[in-house]
Every structure is written in structure tokens, then in C-alpha cells.
């Protein structure tokens, strides 16, 4: 009798503590979800507001307090398209960012390969040095770069921007690929070598397929960084090779600030990369966490 009572008491207290534990897990989840949503909303709000503004008239755009409910108009879009050909800039952006990314991968893959699989005692130092170049403010080398570009005839050319973006992203691309390659067991490449693979075949048949998620996310990041770069594009291009960043900038100065039109231009400029980013987010996350979970 007493045993059964104590048993049932123990069972009851176990049930209580179990439900308490379950509740605390649920609470924790709820808090985390709320925090995540808050951060996401705060981060997305400017973009949301910009898109909203782009459908307002100029008067509504500067109204205080700002109006949330209004009749949407595409006036801004029509006007900016009349002033400058969006598609020309967009094409430049696509060509330059993809070109820079491909070129960067082409150079970074062999260099990351050698650093990951044939390291010397200077490899770590080289990697750190490469990263340190990212700490240099771009404006510090603007003058020499400008002069070199002028002498080589690269000013206002897509080739020029492709080269400068490639150089700008190369350290990050090499670093990311290096960490992805490091995760590949050396044995697999050695087995490939025993099977008769040359270094190139080793890279193409074994290394690239095995690190594809990593390479893809590196490439995507490189495209996004190139797409959003404004410093060099504003300083080294005028019209022929100007990408979308220059397109937005062109709406900001000459006639004062026209919020609705500027928002329309910005929305158009970020739309492709936003959609691209949204479509590839799975790939990005998979790549960035590649090797983290083993």
C-alpha cells in the first residue's frame, strides 16, 4: 500500500516536472521566435519603406506624418525610365558582377587548392596577409588605381570594374574556398591520384563536386558583394560601364532629392539581387554551414 502510494506520488511529481520542462522548452522557443522575427522586421523595414515610398507621389513621399494608406502610382517608375535606361545599367551590373565572380573563382580555386593540400610554412601568413588587404580603406588607393586605369584605358569599362571587383573579393573567396577544401579528407584526393588523376582531374572530378555547395555559396556571396559595391563604380565609371549603383546615385544630386523617384530607382536596383538572394537562400545557408555539422 505504502509502496504504491509513494510510487504514484513519484509518478505524479515526475509528470509535473516533465510538463514543467516541456513548458520551459516551449517558452524558450517562443522567445527565440519573437526575437528572430523582431530582428528580421527591423532589418527589412527600410527596404519595405523604400518600396512603399516608390509607389507614392513626391508630395506623399515627403508628407509628415508619413501616410501608410495611399493610392499607389507608378509615376515615379515611368519618370525615371524616361530619364535613364534602367536596363542598360542592370545589364552592366549583371555582366560585371558575374564576370568578377567567375574570374575570382577561377583564380581562387587553384590557389585555395594549393594552400589547403600543399601547405608550406608560409601558407598561414599568406592567408592572413590576403585578409589584411581588406582592412585597407579603398579610398587610400583610389588615386593610383585611377591613374593606372586611365593609362590602361580601363576607365568606364566593364573590364575595368570586373578586374577591380575581382581583386576586391579575392581574399574572401580564397579564404572561404580554403576552409571548404580543408574539410575534404586528403585520402580521397590521394586515392584519386592513385587512380591516375592529374591535378586538374583531381580538382574537376573530385574536389569541385565534393565542395559544390561551398563554391556555390562563395560565388553567390561574391555576386552580391559585387552587385552592391558603390565606391569603385562611382569613381571609375561615368556612363558606358555604369552599374545600378551609379544609376541610383545619379538620382540623388542634380535636382535635389526626390524621394519617390529615388525610391523607385533604388527598388529597381535592388530588386534583381533581392529576388536572386531569396531564390538561392537555401543554397547560401547550406554552403555557409557546410562542414560545420559533421
Amino acid at each position: 500500500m505504502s509502496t504504491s502510494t509513494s510510487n504514484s506520488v513519484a509518478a505524479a511529481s515526475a509528470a509535473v516536472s516533465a510538463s514543467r520542462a516541456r513548458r520551459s522548452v516551449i517558452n524558450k522557443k517562443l522567445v527565440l521566435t519573437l526575437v528572430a522575427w523582431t530582428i528580421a522586421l527591423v532589418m527589412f523595414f527600410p527596404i519595405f519603406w523604400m518600396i512603399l515610398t516608390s509607389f507614392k507621389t513626391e508630395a506623399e513621399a515627403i508628407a509628415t506624418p508619413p501616410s501608410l494608406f495611399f493610392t499607389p502610382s507608378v509615376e515615379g517608375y515611368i519618370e525615371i525610365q524616361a530619364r535613364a535606361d534602367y536596363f542598360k545599367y542592370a545589364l552592366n551590373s549583371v555582366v560585371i558582377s558575374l564576370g568578377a565572380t567567375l574570374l575570382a573563382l577561377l583564380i581562387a580555386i587553384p590557389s585555395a587548392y594549393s594552400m589547403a593540400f600543399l601547405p608550406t610554412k608560409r601558407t598561414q601568413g599568406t592567408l592572413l596577409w590576403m585578409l589584411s588587404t581588406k582592412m585597407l580603406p579603398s579610398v587610400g588607393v583610389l588615386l593610383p588605381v585611377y591613374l593606372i586605369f586611365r593609362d590602361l584605358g580601363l576607365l568606364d569599362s566593364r573590364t575595368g570594374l570586373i578586374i577591380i571587383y575581382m581583386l576586391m573579393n579575392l581574399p574572401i573567396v580564397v579564404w572561404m574556398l580554403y576552409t571548404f577544401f580543408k574539410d575534404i579528407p586528403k585520402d580521397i584526393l590521394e586515392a584519386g591520384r592513385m587512380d591516375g588523376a592529374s591535378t586538374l582531374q583531381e580538382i574537376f572530378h573530385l574536389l569541385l563536386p565534393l565542395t559544390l555547395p561551398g563554391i556555390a555559396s562563395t560565388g553567390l556571396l561574391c555576386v552580391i558583394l559585387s552587385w552592391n559595391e558603390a565606391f569603385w563604380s562611382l569613381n571609375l565609371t561615368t556612363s558606358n560601364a555604369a552599374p545600378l549603383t551609379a544609376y541610383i546615385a545619379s538620382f540623388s544630386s542634380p535636382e535635389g532629392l526626390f524621394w519617390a523617384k529615388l525610391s523607385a530607382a533604388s527598388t529597381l536596383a535592388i530588386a534583381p539581387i533581392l529576388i536572386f538572394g531569396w531564390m538561392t537562400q537555401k543554397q547560401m545557408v547550406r554552403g555557409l554551414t557546410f562542414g560545420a555539422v559533421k
Partner: protein
Amino acid sequence: MSTLTLKNIVKEFTSGSGASASTTQVIKGVDLEVKDQEFVVFVGPSGCGKSTLMRMIAGLENATSGDILIDGKRMNDIGPAERGLAMVFQSYALYPHMTVGENMGFSLKLAGVSKEERAEKVNAAAEVLQLGPLLDRKPKALSGGQRQRVAIGRAIVRNPSIFLFDEPLSNLDAALRVQMRIELARLHAELKATMIYVTHDQVEAMTMADKIVVLQGGVVEQVGSPMELYHHPRNRFVAGFIGSPKMNFLDITVTGVAGEGVTVRLPDGSERLIPVVSQTEDGASVIVGDSLTLGVRPEHLMLDAQGPFSGQVQVIERLGGVTSLYLATPDGSGDAPIGGLKSDEQSDSGWILMADGDVNSRVGDSIRYGFDTERAHLFTREGLALQNLNRHPLTSLTRQDNSLSSASAAQEARA
């Protein structure tokens, strides 16, 4: 016809740079002859250089000096693929993004072999290894044993002149290891290929090898058939390394040297004649009064009420067929680990005696035991053996001689 010759192979690694650079020699001049169709096992404790030696043969590592000859041709400057070897890695190193079939056919694909021929060869190898139903699976969908077979299949497809195995069974569980051991032996008999096998497991070495190469610290300690290493170890290291449980050692004094052997005095004051030569292989002679080390394998000790040794049982391991007794000796002699049951004044090392499975000794019992003088070993202070006067009749027996019986054992195991 595939032979391998190593001539004075040296491997050095340099670490640091400039004035602080230091060179470590991991292989210190290895000479070796591997005959056609021979199954050679490199065995030694970890860090002895056995894997490095194999990687140099494979071409994955360069030799600092010396010559590597395959079928008489110098291979030092020839790439791994052109050496005509195939290697099975400890981690299997399967290509995770390829199916089993693609894994096995990869070398042929690189060599430009047509798809039909490739499929034919892959299927043939799959048949040998019973991998047929798995050809379309990816490696991650396979068990450890299956992966191992795929790795072996990948090697077979290349039809290499020499197979290299780098600790291929160490990732498998005990039962699978025994099965794969038998399969490898069967494969060796079937393919009639030269095989080199690296392991730290002396049981694998003893059971599979025609010839064992014992390495320690980058030096070859002894090369010989399993029975030769067991019965005629060249030195104390080999004697202790080959055989399980390991050999017991005891310091003794020489009291007589004659043609029929060396007489030694044991701790209890009695004398025994050990039938060994009185000269080591480097010509040093043993004289009366010398201190030597007596080596007796646990299986050559026997319970004997009149025996010269006494000890207290510390641990008993009953395996059914045999029983291992771990004995603490009154004078603390012997260097086998005997576990933690000892009291404070006792040494934590002692002797191991392998007795009959039905022996009824208990922990704490004091027992007397003796040894088979015919099978005892003597080593000088430098660790060199005084060879037994009588060669053991099985020392020249290689595994190939009993390949028939191992093949039938394999069939039994499969049935």
C-alpha cells in the same frame, strides 16, 4: 610478375626554417626485397614509419634518398598512377559523390576506357567481392564492411602489379575483421598478386603474411616468415612485439658456455641449459658471468610444483580453451603488466603464464611454475638474440604453402 625492391630508403622531414630548421629522419635506410605473389606485412608500433614507407612505395611521398624498384625499374620519379599499383586506404577514401560502380570504374574512366569495357571490368570485380547488388548505391548507404570491399574492388579493377593496403581493417569491428582477413587471404590466392599490407595488429600480420617486416623507429628490425619471427626473433624488440600475450623477460647470469648451449642460473639458484649458440649475429661471444635476459613466451611456461619460479596470481583471464594467469613474482621480476590487484610492496609488473583452459587456480593463489628450455630465448644486454641451435621446422613455411587450407576455411566461413 611483380617484384619490389627497396634500396637504402631514407625519408627525412624538415620542420622550422632557416637556422632553426631541424630534420627528423623517419625512415633510416630500409632495404627490402618483395618477391612476386608474396604477401608482405609491415608491422610495428605507431610512429615506426610503416605507413610512410608504404606511401613512398605508392608514390604519394618522395623518398629523401635510396631507390624504389618495381620489376627492376627505378620508380622514384614516376607518378603514383604510372607505377601500376593500387592502394586501399584505412579510411577507404571512397568518392562520396559517386556510386559504387563509378567509384570502381573511376580509374578506367580516367584512362579513357570505353563505357562497355568499364562496365565489364567493374562487374567482374564486383562478382569477386559480391558487390553486384550494390553497384548503384552511394558509399554513405553502405556498411563499413561493404565500403571496405568497394575500396578493394576499386583496387582490383585497376589490375595492379602490386596491391598496397594501409591498415584496411582497423575501422571494422572484431567479427568483420576476422571475416575480411579470410577474404583478403582468399583474394590473394585468387588474384595471385603481390600484396603489401601495413598494420599495427600482430595477429593480422601473423595470420596473413608470407613475410613480415617488423619496423621500429624507421629501422627494419627483422624480416621473416611469421613462424621465423615467432621462434627465432632477432632481438628482444621483435620477441616482445610478436606473440600475444607478450614474451616474459627475466635477468639471469651465465654459468656455463658449451657446444650444446648456454647454462644460466635462475633466481631460485637452480641452473638450466638453454640450447642456443654462444655468439650473437654481430660476433660478440657470451662468457661465464655475463648478464643476459631470459625470454619465455607465456605459452611455454607451465604449472609445475617443482618448477624454478614462484608467483602469486593477480588476475585470471579465462578464454575457455586457455587461461592466462598474471603472476606477481616474489623478487618483482618480469615486465608484463599484471594489473592493479597487487599490494603496495609488490611490483606492478610480473609474468604471464598461459595454462590449460581447465586450470583451477584462483586469484591470490601462490603457484610454482617452470618453462620449456627448448623454447626459451636468451638476449644479450644490447638486446640481440642468441639463436636457438635447432631451427624450428616450420620457419620457412609461408602462408602460400597452406593457401589451400585457408581457401577452404574461407568457404566454410561463408557457408
